[in-house]
């Protein structure tokens, strides 16, 4: 009971092991000396460009007086699908609302960017930044001050040249 094997007739040039080997060796040595062809990005020193729509680490924008723009309306914790925003509203003597506690758990966040979309004051933003590493889980809970201290550019949410995302 022999197994039937289909043998394809091919020209010698295609099936020659020696010629293919020599061609392959030529190709590899060409790449070996191709100094300008190295494609690795040397990460910590050079970073690949990220999209203007990149949604990364959050950032709270501030007014000219250095206070958070947030008015503690409560829209962002409501819309947040990951339930990672903790907001306790406060009110000063003039009746202005402000956040007493504003915390974002970056570990729970799924970076959907809804908080930025929903914010009426353009206060909370997702940012074009991704290097947030910590030694503990607690370190990923960013409080208001830390959110305000972030300096990276914020997400555009849409490409200005292609607003409809086409």
């Amino acid at each position, binding site marked *: 009971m022999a197994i039937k094997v289909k*043998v394809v007739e091919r020209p010698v040039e295609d*099936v*020659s092991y020696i*010629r293919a080997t020599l061609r392959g*060796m030529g190709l590899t040595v060409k*790449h070996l000396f191709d100094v300008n*062809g190295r*494609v690795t990005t040397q990460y910590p020193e050079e970073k690949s460009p990220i999209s203007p729509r990149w949604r990364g680490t959050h950032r709270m924008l501030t007014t000219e007086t250095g206070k958070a723009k947030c008015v503690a309306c409560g829209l962002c914790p409501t819309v947040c699908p990951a339930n990672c925003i903790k907001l306790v509203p406060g009110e000063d003597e003039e009746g202005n609302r402000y956040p007493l506690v504003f915390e974002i758990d970056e570990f729970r966040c799924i970076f959907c960017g809804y908080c930025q979309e929903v914010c009426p004051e353009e206060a909370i933003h997702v940012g074009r930044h991704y290097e947030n590493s910590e030694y503990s889980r607690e370190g990923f809970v960013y409080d208001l001050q830390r959110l305000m201290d972030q300096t990276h550019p914020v997400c555009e949410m849409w490409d200005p040249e292609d607003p409809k995302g086409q």
Partner: protein
Amino acid sequence: MTGVHIVPALLQAIDPNNTPVSGGAFFWFTVLKMLVIFTIYMVGVAMLTLAERKISAWIQDRHGPNRVGKGWLQPAADGLKNFMKEETMPEGVNKPLFVLAPILSFLPALTAWCVIPFGAPIATRWGRVDLVVADLPVGFLFILAVSSLGVYGIVLAGWSSNNKYALLGGLRSSAQMVSYEISMGMSTIPVLLLAGNVTLNSIINQQAWGGWNVVNLTIAFFVFMVAAFAETNRLPFDLPEAESELIAGYHTEYSAMKFSLFFIAEYASMVTASALMATLFFGGWDVPFTAHDNIGPYSGWLSLLSIGIFLAKILFFLFLFMWVRWTLPRFRYDQLMSLGWKVLLPTILVYIVLIAAVMLGLSAAGIDQAEHGVMYCAILGSINVALIIILFAMLDRGRIISPAYGRMQPREIEKLRRLDRRRGAAPEVAG
């Protein structure tokens, strides 16, 4: 042929500077040579791991290790890591063999080095110092004997691990190494025929006077090279390891420094194989196109130059090893066996007969290797070119190792069908 050895021997006899060191000086020089060789060898092997990674990276358009001391300290970091890691001892292993196997695979490669001459002799106050740790009269046979012990380490590692993948790797390696050992040993017979001696020094001497063996015995060199690739378990013959099929093959269960020893053993046997190729076929430490380095008076600079030449030859072959590794894919097991038994062995057997016949014919025609070195070399070389063309035309048909073809000729299939028809059965034959 005898003239080859008489000329330097006579010159050495009359030169008072040329008496070999003896007594206490001999002992201390040998110890010194051992220490120096061992140190350079181990450091070299460590740097080879870096070279391998760098060359693989460059071939794949990457940068390779460039963090630890610009990459140069990477071997040290790797070594340190391996020392710090945990030595695991899996359940069910055969403990004595499990510990013995890495040592056994590492030692033969290292031991083979003690008979390989690595430079022209140095004349010292105490006499002539040969740059070889032990100038054994049976030098080459010793290497063959020792290098075939390397398979023990791998087989024992595979067996004692109590792991099916390791066992498969060990089995494959024993079959592979035993098969290619034959071709390897056979391919050196023409070299011994030409040199008329098994001392490595006399083989080098013969090449210095009568042309490098790569010209004289090109096909033997190619067979030796292919067999050396198989013996060192390097791609395209790395079936014992076969990362993609057998996890890591015979050293799957090993960790830390025991694993590292296998790794060192692989590179050490690469160095040894390269040194053998350089010695047997590329004139060893012989400086090309010069004759004065083969006879006295010897000087330190000359020895240094010859060591450098030898190193350059070894490095070239090491580069070749790596270049091939990152170019060719692995052979299938049956292809490996058919290449070893059906191609290399018949080729080299026919070649031995041919070379012996040519040598007999040349000596009958009165052409002596020592007196007409260039002519002898040219005749052998042209015969080799003709043989290579014939061999290439035969191998190039692609039947033997090409995966696209079955292993049967259409003619044989027809014959089987006819036989079948005579018996009255339906023809169903593998193509």
